[in-house]
């Protein structure tokens, strides 16, 4: 293989932010992304928004998937968005939110810059397909 041949790969950060301690869903999605051929960086539990921003910037991910079950999305997601903007990383990062999000809040998150919200019971293929179609080029 020539060194000039491009070897792109979709890079995703699967992030657990805030106080909730349930990461089964995050593990499942990380595994599904891996099996889809993506490179997945998993943040680990209980991360602060600026830690997520640091990881997203350093790892240069195309996709940031935030998993929140605690109900604190209205507080935490705006902080992450602001941090990404600070590092010029907002415009070319696809932001997804997974978890239990009331419909009213969904609209608000999307206005903020979140591309899609995946609630409980979303088929894995749907999420993977969405990432394939919408992941920004690197």
């Amino acid at each position, binding site marked *: 293989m*020539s060194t*000039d*041949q491009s070897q792109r790969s979709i890079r995703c950060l699967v992030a657990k932010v805030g106080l909730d301690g349930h990461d089964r869903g995050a593990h499942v999605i990380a595994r599904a992304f*891996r099996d889809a051929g993506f490179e997945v960086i998993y943040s680990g539990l209980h991360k*602060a928004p600026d830690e997520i921003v640091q990881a997203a910037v350093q790892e240069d991910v195309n996709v940031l998937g935030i998993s929140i079950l605690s109900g604190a999305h209205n507080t935490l997601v705006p902080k992450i968005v602001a941090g990404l903007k600070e*590092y010029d990383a907002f415009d070319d990062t696809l932001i997804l939110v997974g978890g239990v999000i009331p419909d009213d809040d969904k609209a608000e998150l999307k206005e903020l810059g979140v591309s899609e919200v995946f609630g409980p019971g979303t088929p894995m293929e749907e999420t993977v397909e969405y990432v394939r179609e919408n992941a920004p080029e690197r």
Partner: protein
Amino acid sequence: MSESAGLLEDLLAGKHRALARVITKIENHDPGYRELVSGLYEHTGHAEVIGITGSPGAGKSTLVDKLAEHYREQGETVGVVAIDPSSPYTGGAVLGDRIRMASNVGDMDVFFRSMSARGNLGGLSTATADAVKAMDAFGKDKVIIETVGAGQNEIDIVGAADTVCVLVPPGAGDNVQMLKAGILEIADVFVVNKADMDGADRTVQELTEMVHLGQGSTTVDAGHHGFDEVEMDLDMPTDTDPWKPPIVETIAIDGEGVVDLVETFAEHRQFLEDSGELTRRRRQRVAEEIRTLLRDDAAGLVAAELEDHGGVGAFLDDVMAGDTDPYTIADDVMGPIRDCVEEQ
């Protein structure tokens, strides 16, 4: 200004986003990445590069975290390249070493970057070395490479690191393991991590014996770093004692032994500089880089030539039918390239 030139400027100006993007381009072998790396080159050579290797679960990530914390406390900036395996089937990967970087969260002066092996260990070593150059040019004082932890033969790391540290878990095996070639030979420093576990004493003992027997020592006059020896026009000092890899015990999770280890790294650094070994290693590294680039370019030519012949599939039927053989085909395809080169 081209995109690459702009990125390079931003990287040198200390923008984290630019460093991240440059590493991505290097990893992807995006068009223009060679221009980028060649632009980085003149800004490199300041960082001390430390390679950490050892079997899976040896505690590499935890140790890297503590090392980074220690260097930060001394006011030095740190870059980390951590390599994780990728799936041979899908190419996908879960890059999980970041989780262990608990001591350094929120500190942008520790730039931690995960890389996937992308199923290609040979190409990976080039990408890793180039990512290290990016961090070096960015101005990191220390760059730590954490390898995938694949096993006994993971020796590519010596191509990119000044100091190679091999983690040996307690109870790693008997004396025969110590006699084998491979990862133990490349160590400049041994670490017996999890030193509070059963069998740690015995492992230290066995390593000590091995080092005293001269196995695995990286001496000045023995160029056994997996590379071809480069012609030397250096005056090699003869009065320096060869380096005997020290054995440091750590309990990385508690940070125990980390100060000793950092001191040992500094001693090795001093040795490298005093003995001329640093220059020797860097010359070897450049030689290997030149060879790799030439090999890659040649491979590209060959691939294009093969494509002109209709790809490898076109030959398969002929070989399977017994009309020809792979050696004859290789001769036929390479013939015109060889003729061109010889004419020059």
